[in-house]
């Protein structure tokens, strides 16, 4: 039987209450939402928090809405809601691409976007999607809120910018004209973690790429943000040749390690091919040539 080590449990009734509890409980306190990453880690004793603060009752953290020039997603929004959201599918179709291949529908009923990002597993899909879409996250502590870009959010394997006594409350995705996005993943079997996955976003203005986002899952110690591919794409006219070149850069710039999912050269190859495909679909969507 796999059982977590003992801990104390409390249920938060407000965001302020959750932050207060985190501060009162100190460094060994953790937030639990869906629990589908944290509880397996606790069963394996890879995580041994002494206090769990349950935020599942905080309905105010569950929303997907357009506000000004952003789409804002509450941290407690579950995968199933991200998958079903027509607003997200319209604005950022990479989300639906990713959600249909994240775990399985039963797990998606519980897992949340905040939990996925805070778990900061390099193989996790939404981190790559958010990175490609130039997202930022809102982190709240007793002293107020701060907004952190995805680039500064993942600071190492399973490590994020969320500090002691702080709670991730929201993900913000900037809206910009001419956008299209896509997420491509190859896994060994349905519901598994990626062998490799690529997220791409393109903003096309007057036939040229005004801005680009490329990020990879499962091919490095953290989500790999391929800045060199983005630089290559900016200011260019979209073409299959250009996307193949960007895929080549993604292949070079990732740092996969060999494991049961495959050797390094295979993963590099996949990273390149998936980047190319994601860019191609993102471009088609930006031009409204594909739903």
């Amino acid at each position, binding site marked *: 039987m796999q059982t977590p080590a003992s801990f104390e449990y409390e249920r938060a009734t407000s965001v302020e209450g959750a932050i207060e509890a985190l501060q009162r409980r100190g460094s060994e306190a953790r937030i*639990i939402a869906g629990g589908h990453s944290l*509880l397996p880690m606790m069963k394996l004793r890879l995580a041994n928090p002494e206090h769990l603060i*349950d935020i599942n009752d905080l309905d105010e953290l569950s929303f997907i809405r357009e506000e000004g020039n952003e789409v804002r997603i509450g941290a407690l929004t579950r995968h199933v809601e991200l998958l079903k959201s027509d607003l997200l599918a319209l604005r950022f179709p990479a989300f639906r691409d990713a959600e249909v291949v994240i775990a399985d529908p*039963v797990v998606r009923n*519980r897992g949340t976007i905040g939990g996925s990002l805070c778990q900061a597993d390099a193989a996790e899909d939404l981190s790559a999607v958010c990175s490609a879409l130039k997202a930022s996250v809102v982190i709240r502590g007793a002293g107020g809120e701060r907004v952190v870009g995805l680039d500064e959010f993942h600071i190492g394997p399973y490590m994020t910018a969320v500090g002691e006594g702080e709670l991730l409350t929201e993900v913000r995705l900037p809206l910009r004209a001419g956008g299209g996005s896509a997420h491509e993943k190859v896994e060994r079997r349905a*519901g598994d973690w990626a062998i490799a996955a690529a997220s791409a976003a393109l903003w096309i203005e007057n036939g040229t790429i005004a801005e680009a986002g490329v990020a990879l899952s499962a091919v490095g110690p953290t989500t790999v943000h391929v800045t060199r591919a983005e630089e290559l794409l900016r200011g260019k006219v979209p073409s299959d040749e250009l996307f193949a070149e960007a895929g080549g850069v993604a292949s070079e710039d990732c740092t996969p390690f060999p494991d049961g999912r495959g050797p390094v050269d295979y993963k590099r190859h996949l990273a390149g091919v998936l980047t190319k495909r994601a860019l191609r679909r993102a471009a088609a969507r930006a031009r409204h040539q594909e739903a």
Partner: protein
Amino acid sequence: MQVTVSINGESVSRDIEPRQLLVHFIRDTPGLTGTHWGCDTSNCGACVVLMDGQPIKSCTTLAVMCEGHEIRTVESLEVDGALDPVQQGFHEMHALQCGFCTPGMLMTSRALLDENPNPTEDEIRTAISGGICRCTGYKNIVAAVQWAAQHEAATRQEV
């Protein structure tokens, strides 16, 4: 700590450690062993129960997190000796051999039909993709859910 969870409409109360998983709470406290405890890693789906009507994996949920929520297990499907249409479908279409995955498959299928009474084969396959069956190759499980959907539709027409 004292935890009270509603299971199949009955309030079940017990002093437990917060680390107790829902699957063990269900099996140990009211003794409802229909919910199976399988892989313990949220992969196999044998432990699926409904929480407020939605299928969840009870091996990856703490019992204490379920206070205030309605849990429904496989034991709730049969009412006064009458099988639920999904149970009848599994029987008619031979959708089990060893039966280990069955409680999870039944609850997942029940939730699917509650939300989508007329699912396509693809929708059924997607819905049950969180469950692993090593006997049937899934073909007969899909047929059983289709059987249940058809018979439920016929029943609705009669009413």
